[in-house]
């Protein structure tokens, strides 16, 4: 398989800049994987896990990747995420706390439309972070 140039940026800095074999992530329409030679492509990133395959094995680096967009051009794949955190950098306790907080907020039923929406988004974010940590252990 051929490699291609991948760049991952977020407002917190540059997370990756180099040649990779494959990258997979969750967009607003579902999971996708990009290989070398992909046609020019733009889509928005959803809330999910991003995997970067640097070599031809199934070994990958995992990260939580939320929001922003991916732009595939002829010579560069750019992931411009709102939030990007490598699995080893995710704060487990913080994510866990966020999860419990969001869950209790939703369960309390006292929240109205907009804040319920926010709580659900927070829960989804926390779940992704926890899942990425979990997957990374295996």
């Amino acid at each position, binding site marked *: 398989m051929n490699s291609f140039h991948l*760049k991952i*940026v*977020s*407002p*917190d*800095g*540059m997370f990756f800049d180099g040649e990779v074999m494959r990258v997979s992530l969750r*967009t*607003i*329409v579902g999971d996708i994987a990009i290989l070398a030679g992909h*046609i*020019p*492509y*733009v*889509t*928005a990133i959803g809330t999910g896990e991003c995997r970067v395959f640097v070599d031809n094995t199934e070994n990958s680096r995992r990260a939580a990747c939320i*929001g*922003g*967009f991916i*732009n595939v*051009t*002829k*010579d560069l794949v*750019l992931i*411009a995420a*709102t939030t990007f955190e490598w699995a080893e950098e995710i704060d487990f306790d913080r994510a866990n706390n966020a999860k419990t907080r969001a869950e209790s907020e939703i369960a309390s039923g006292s929240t109205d439309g907009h804040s319920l929406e926010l709580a659900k988004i927070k829960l989804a974010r926390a779940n992704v972070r926890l899942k990425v940590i979990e997957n990374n252990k295996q």
Partner: protein
Amino acid sequence: MAESSMKDISSRIKSIKSTKQITKAMELVATSKLSKAKERIAKSRYFHSAVYAALTDIAKRNMDTDSVYALKREIKKSCFVIIGGDRGLAGGYNSNVFRYAKEQIGDKTVSILPIGKRTTEYCRRMGYEIVSDEFSNVEEQNVGSCHEMANLLTDCYLKREFDELYVVYTEFISVLNQRPEIMKLLPLDKNMKEDHITENKGLILFEPGMESVFNAIVPSYVAGMLWGAVCESTTSEFGARRTAMESATKNAEEMIDNLSLKYNRARQGSITQEITEIVAGSGL
């Protein structure tokens, strides 16, 4: 007479010394904040430039799009995000950015989103319409609040409350050099500042569709640009303050030196006079 002028001088020296202490302290604070802000700016610049390049490229290749963010409208009202400081004592930092903003606004009908307490005060004084003063405190802004700002602004844009969006900020070139800049955020068009495009062939596949992709990515693009501008501006502010305080400290030192010289002269003068008087008295 000498006595009283000596007293005057020594009290002036005292007061200048305490001023110097303050300016020195402010210089140190600004220096430490500056180094942190510089780290932040280095990080945000990656995102800033990558996203700007990507969006410009997308917009240029797909100018036939009917996305509301790319369509040119008749300009009835413009929105300016002006980023200034929370505090003064930063040399010409605030006044430079305000003057520049005023030039850019010209005779357009505008609404302003001020960032920075000084900016809010300035906009009130000038009688500009203010979109929101929620983001008045520039030092408290973070990535999250830039997203809120971006959502607010894109919402207003969709509701046609204004027809174009600019951000006025101060670009950090070096500690000694900062330059006010303007950047057009919306609508996305061909006349964007830099020419990043490398090739101009082939269409881009948008999934699920151009419209929904644009709707999803434009707010995060605006947020990224705003965050970049906030980082540039705060770093510039600390840089300007450091320079201003450094020169204030230096001036204070100079004044103290001059006054000490005067004080010593007065002291010498009074001693000489006393001696002359005593000598004159004993000679009788």
